């Protein structure tokens, strides 16, 4: 027997998407009992206090095996009545259902849905820098050199968002998401350069003072992962990232790394 059922439209959220949701909801990531591989960053601040009970649950074990973050914690600020401010834990299950460990109002739930929606919209640009480097690193370096290379690339991106957007590298998640977003926008621009549209850029915007590992990352990624890169592609990519960094105002209310994606979408139709 069969019946008419809709296509599977439930939402599966991957680790990076969950981290982004948490980031958008102002999450604190230090409470989680499992390790999160973060390049060049202080891992201790991510592994945090290990709650043994939590580790025993199959939920967390599954998440560890899959490398996915399955619990998201964030803080609800009540401006009018600070006494009601509280930490909230959400559990995201593989089939797309979500539960909360404490009381949430429908309005607060709406914020969660908005964060999920924005995350899903930009999901293509949420590949961690770590994973992007994994795509090609085995091709280029001797084993001993790889970690050094990784650390330098991730340090370079950290430096970029710190210098240009005042993102403190002490804010591990903030810095991490910025690196991820900038790297993915760059790759998006590379893809655009292959598509044959004319590579319009302002030569004066080609950065001269960036850490050379930014360029190294993009050049290596393009070299090993893409074909038919035009000669001017690299300048096109970095100058437009530079322009993008100028276009956003990190002091503006509501600014987040997602603002960069929104701006890139508008400017370059990525």
């Amino acid at each position, binding site marked *: 027997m069969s019946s008419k059922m809709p296509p599977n439209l439930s939402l599966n959220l991957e680790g990076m998407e969950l981290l982004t949701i948490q980031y958008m909801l102002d999450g604190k990531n230090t409470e989680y009992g499992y390790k999160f591989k973060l390049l060049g960053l202080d891992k201790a601040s991510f592994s945090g206090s290990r709650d043994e009970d939590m580790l025993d649950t199959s939920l967390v074990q599954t998440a560890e095996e899959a490398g996915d973050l399955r619990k998201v914690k964030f803080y609800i600020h009540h401006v009018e009545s600070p006494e009601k401010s509280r930490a909230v834990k959400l559990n995201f299950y593989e089939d797309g*259902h979500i539960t909360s460990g404490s009381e949430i109002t429908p309005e607060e739930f709406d914020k969660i849905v908005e964060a999920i929606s924005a995350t899903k919209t930009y999901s293509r640009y949420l590949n961690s820098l770590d994973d992007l480097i994994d795509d090609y690193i085995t091709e280029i370096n001797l084993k001993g050199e790889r970690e050094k290379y990784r650390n330098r690339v991730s340090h370079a991106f950290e430096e970029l968002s710190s210098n240009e957007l005042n993102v403190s590298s002490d804010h591990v998640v903030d810095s991490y998401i910025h690196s991820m977003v900038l790297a993915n926008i760059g790759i998006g621009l590379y893809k655009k350069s292959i598509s044959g549209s004319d590579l319009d850029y302002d030569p004066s915007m080609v950065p001269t003072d960036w850490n050379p590992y930014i360029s190294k990352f993009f050049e290596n990624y393009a070299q090993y992962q893409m074909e038919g890169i035009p000669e001017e592609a690299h300048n096109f990519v970095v100058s437009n990232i530079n322009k993008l960094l100028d276009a956003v105002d990190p002091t503006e209310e509501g600014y987040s790394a997602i603002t960069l994606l929104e701006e890139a979408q508008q400017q370059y139709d990525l």
Partner: protein
Amino acid sequence: MTENQFFFREDYTLEEMESRIRAGEFTIDNAPVYEILDDTQLTPDEAEDAGKEEILNILGDDLSSEDYYDFIEEMFEKYGHEGDRFNQQLFKLPPNHDLNNLRDSLERFEGGPLGQPFDSILSQPLYLNEIKEEGSKIDLRFNTSVDMEEYESEEEIPIQVIDEEGNRVDEISEDNAVRIPTRSRIEARIYPNQKMISISNSEIPVRLQKEIFTVVLSIITDSSTDTEDLIEVDDE
């Protein structure tokens, strides 16, 4: 009963308010607690040593039920956690459909049991009982039809009869049983801007939830009986 309420919750029972105030808030440092002591036998020192449960017991004995209610309400408004623990399933809605007139389309099915054109979707009677708009969002409340469930009273844990405020007024004696009409309540919220729907996931069969999703989907995809847009899948 306020079971399975989330989007449609409007008020809280006394019991709910009590449980949503953290024990730590029952301290004389909080004005409502300090002020209520005058009407009770408790001294500030005693109140500071007593736990939440003890304080509530004493207040319950010393105050009129009206004053007790007012006190709890004041505490709840100041310190209580509003909202509910939720268990929700999110689904994507088809991106290419205009959801501007969705409310009108939905309203045609409000009230009575959902019959045609949903016969082919539903495996049990279902009612779309309430529709309300919250800003850009649309909330839906569905109910299944009534089932009778029988519960036997036991000596150790007898079935209690309670009043509106949750106070016990009677007990069903041992060996007697009660028949309780039950029906599932399923709430959903449609997010037209995000093209998503969230459907309650707690204590309802997956099949029913999928059916509700399919009903909404078929109303969106042109409110027609046609389930052409839907993909045929085998039953699990």
